[in-house]
């Protein structure tokens, strides 16, 4: 049948494309086992000529890497949890409830979706410092606990859920908040997975904000530490950089692997398509 033959070709093409797409990723991992000299060689090598664990030992011995790892995790988990909770709350209100100011609230959320981050950066820093949150983990977390995008996503998804559930809940005499928490929230799995992955990814990789807010190394996150140790004023330690980048990407990769099906389902059903 023609279908099988075309599939065979497709696999070949896809495999070639796949190799091209993941090549930089693979090169990053392989590069983390190379020496600085080899990384600067021309033409560049693919497999490490003399594989070394040096970069990793330096990463974990010299630097307080486990501390940064813990900080990154706390921040990313808190930010993700906050977004999941608060954005679904507003999203539900916007999608299902009728209240004065709803339209305005929604327009404001949509408007801020378009504002470039660079606009608010400096005023935000001055603000965070003035309320005494500089150099603290809350200072890293609070400004990111909600996002317009999260609200939009949750609202779109919940709009697509059957309204009958709301009326049924009311008939049963459940309070409005209970209807949200017990009936609708459990149905939001795919959307929460989508929002969760995107938020975690963003928080995990966030660089500039933790850099200026965390003033002591004990508050640094992974990307800040990575930039710190791998780049000098006039030189870059590529091996260390690649080893660090590999360590940073692994948790994200694992989370994506674990949730990818729900992630896609979430996008499929949020109505953002």
């Amino acid at each position, binding site marked *: 049948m023609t279908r099988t033959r075309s599939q065979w070709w497709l696999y070949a*093409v*896809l495999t070639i*494309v796949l190799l091209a*797409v*993941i*090549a*930089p*990723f693979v*090169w*990053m991992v392989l590069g983390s086992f190379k020496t600085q000299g080899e990384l600067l060689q*021309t033409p*560049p090598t693919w497999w490490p000529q003399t594989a070394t664990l040096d970069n990793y030992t330096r990463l974990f011995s010299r630097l307080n890497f486990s501390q940064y790892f813990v900080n990154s995790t706390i921040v990313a988990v808190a930010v993700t949890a906050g977004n999941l909770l*608060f*954005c679904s*709350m*507003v999203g*539900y209100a*916007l999608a299902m*409830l*009728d*209240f004065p100011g709803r339209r305005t609230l*929604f*327009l*404001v959320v949509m408007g*801020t979706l*378009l*504002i*470039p981050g660079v*606009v608010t*950066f*400096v*005023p*935000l820093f001055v603000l965070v410092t003035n309320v005494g949150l500089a150099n603290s983990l809350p200072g890293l977390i*609070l400004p990111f606990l*909600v996002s*317009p995008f999260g*609200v939009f996503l949750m609202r*779109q998804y919940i*709009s697509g*859920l059957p*309204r009958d559930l*709301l009326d049924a809940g009311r008939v049963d005499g459940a309070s*409005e*908040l209970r209807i*949200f928490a017990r009936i609708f929230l459990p149905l939001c799995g795919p959307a929460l997975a989508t929002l969760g992955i995107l938020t975690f*990814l963003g928080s995990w990789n966030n660089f500039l904000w933790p850099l200026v807010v965390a003033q002591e190394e004990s508050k640094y996150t992974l*990307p800040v530490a990575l*930039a710190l140790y791998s780049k000098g004023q006039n030189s870059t330690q590529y091996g260390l*950089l*690649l080893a660090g*980048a590999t360590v*940073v*990407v692994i948790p994200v*990769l694992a989370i*994506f692997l674990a949730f*990818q099906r729900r*992630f*896609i389902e979430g996008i499929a059903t949020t109505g*953002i*398509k």
Partner: protein
Amino acid sequence: MSSTTEVTPSGATGRGSSPRGKGGDTRPASNPGAGASRRRQGLAAWTLALPFCLLFLVFTAWPVIQSLFMSFTDTRSRDLRTPFAVDIVGLDNFTKAFSDPIFRKSMLNTAYFVVVGVPLTMAMALAAAVALDKGITKLRGLFRLGFYTPVITSIVAVAVVWRFLLERDYGLINTVLGWVGIDGPNWLGDPNWAMPGLILMASWRNFGTGMIIFLAGLQAVPWMLHEAAAIDGAGAWQRFRHITLPLLRPTLLFVSVTTAIGYLQFFEEPFVMTNGGPLNSTISMSMYTYKQFGFGNYGLASAMSYIIFVIVAIVTAIQFRLLRENT
């Protein structure tokens, strides 16, 4: 703007046949005792919205207002400790931005990047999604993960690798071009080729996101329609053109809007790869704005960021207008 919200839920998504509410804009059916119910609803709604509103007002609305204020003043970095002891200069910062040849150049560069980059990224994303959705049956998860890795790979690693890929003499891309007899350009060193190089890299980095969304959208395309068309003798391309594409229109627009918003603010690629060069051929609006912040010209930089905001808003509005006309 509100047109999005009305259009999107109407696209069937294949989540069974459960009837879907028409979204937030329909009012609940009025029932007896509506007044009390409405009050109760309003109270519940604002309770639910309260944490968001508080955080939003403090950490988003306030800085936005302050920077808007800054854009009409001559604020420099030294003024930030006394933010109101500055002179109001009206629209000076905006006229200054528009008369700056490098800012104008950065607008052209950004337009170039968006006009070429968005379609290319979308085409790659769509091709990958179609291939994975209907073309193959095995190893889908593997390919999906593989195509998504560029999205989650750190930009620093991406930059290092792509610099090697785009190298003139021994870079992978020029080596491959050499096999078919093409003498590859000096990508990042040539003002005419640096931008195409960055567009290629950005498309590679971002098509995974679009692919995932297209994969989701494709679940809404009923397989039966394809089967029927195939029996009628329609080829694969015809089926794609006349069945898949029209049904994907809402998804296409969503991807094009989000990609365009991202690309209009593109920053990281030139920041790590070319620093805006050679000859300012890759400097983007966001990057130039960031530079002005770095120089301490906060008033000017704020004005520039609001110019970007207005452009993003206009482009988004145009895209939604197109959507409304076509559906």
